[in-house]
């Protein structure tokens, strides 16, 4: 399927907006948090995106944004970038580990470094920083010149 075609089809779904084509074989779309779970299921089951490349958490100061990169394992290399906005005071979203096993540690990393909570994740704990570390250092308001504890 052409990139423009499937982005158009996906943009018609509830909660999806801003469908666009970034470059050859790469699409971009924005989804609301409420609609994201149903959207991801369709992406995996109907559109064949079988590989979760990356989950990036971005601190936009006003809120958080999750950027998912999905791709298809074939020689065409179709990709889709999905943006989901999260409010600053409740940075939670449903986990996608039951759809893509590879999302497991990406979600743990987003929790560890940015403090995003993934509901339904089998084992949401820190992955790169030690247990008991205070705060989430990739947030823009994290003050890292002051270390109260030695690590």
């Amino acid at each position, binding site marked *: 399927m052409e990139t423009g075609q499937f982005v158009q089809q996906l943009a018609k779904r509830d909660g999806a907006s801003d469908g666009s084509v970034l470059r050859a074989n790469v699409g971009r779309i924005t989804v609301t948090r409420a609609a994201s779970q149903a959207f991801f299921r369709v992406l995996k089951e109907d559109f064949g995106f079988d590989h979760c490349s*990356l989950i990036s958490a971005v601190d936009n100061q006003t809120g958080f944004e999750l950027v998912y*990169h999905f791709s298809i394992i074939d020689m065409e290399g179709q990709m889709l970038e999905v943006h989901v906005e999260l409010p600053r005071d409740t940075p939670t979203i449903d986990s996608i580990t039951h759809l893509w096993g590879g999302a497991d540690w990406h979600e743990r990393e987003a929790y560890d470094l940015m403090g995003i909570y993934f509901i339904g994740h089998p084992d949401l704990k820190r992955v790169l920083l030690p247990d008991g570390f205070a705060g989430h250092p990739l947030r823009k308001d994290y003050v890292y010149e002051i270390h109260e504890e030695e690590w």
Partner: protein
Amino acid sequence: MAEMWIHMGPQHPMTHGLWNLRIKVDGETITDAEPELGYLHRSVEKIGERRKYFMNTTLTDRLCYASAMTWTHCYCLTAEELMGVEVPPRAKYIRTVVLELQRIASHLMWLASYLPDLGLITGFLYGMRDREMFLNLLEIPSGGRLLYNYVKIGGVKRDLPPGFDAKAERVMQTLERRLKEYEDLYDNSKIFRMRTDDVGCYSASDAINWGITGPNLRSAGVPFDLRQADSYDAYPELDFTPVTTSAGNGRSDCFSRYRQRIDEMYQSMDLVRQALVKMPEGKVMAGSVPVRARGEAFRRTEDSRGEALMYLIGDGTDRPYRWKIRSPMFTTVSAAPHFLKGYKVADVPAIMGSIDMCIGETDK
């Protein structure tokens, strides 16, 4: 029998870097496992937010000391996409040459570290000896032995000197001759085969679901190579098809992962030859490279160990607002409990060695 947890690492001959593998055993059989990372975490992404775009190439070199060139290249490719910089054709070809030479050096490093895990100390000496030839080759244009800082945003630091292709050809002929020797030595070694055949198996569909990429995925018979699927630099103009191996029925085992990397070295040498022949004349650096950038961009490349992806957000200043790195090994290691289960404790070095871990990029 009572089950118990054993720590393999952080200081263990099997780990090749600083990480910890906790395994739960029932007698000699592994029933569960849990990798623990973070011993080498330097928070490259956060440091990068405080540095200018062009400064970050020193950081990306240090992501993986065995494959520094490919990581810097991935960063530069993303930054070029973000800034809209067009790389001159000659620079694209030079990049292709050094990337493939780096891939061979990285695979030889893997060979040198994997074989002593299985008791073949000779393999360590042979692998390191051959890797040194490729490090010497990469030293010619870059001046560095491990950390090159050679690929720059907009091109490469300097041109290849005259006579480089003759030197490269001589080195590659030597390696070809020796690789055949190694194949005779290892493929026919009964001990090596006993320790790798049907050990650490996973199916292609599982590997895709777990996010395993690169040689570890192709060794299950999946012809997926980002050098073609999401092509960059001179790769679209070169003639090649992805190399795959398989342990039968779309499965990957330790031996097929070993074969995969040996076959990829032959392919890389072929690509270097093609690129050196087709290389056009001209500049090696774009005329002007912006200092500031706004917007967002991502690119993915076929790293020596799998799919490397970098995502950059610029807010109009000279430093990235957010820089996110996808490390192929980070995801592959997360799947380790799945393909360790059911095997014996003695198989752990064979299995974990065969996926070619690099803890520098995994911990970031």
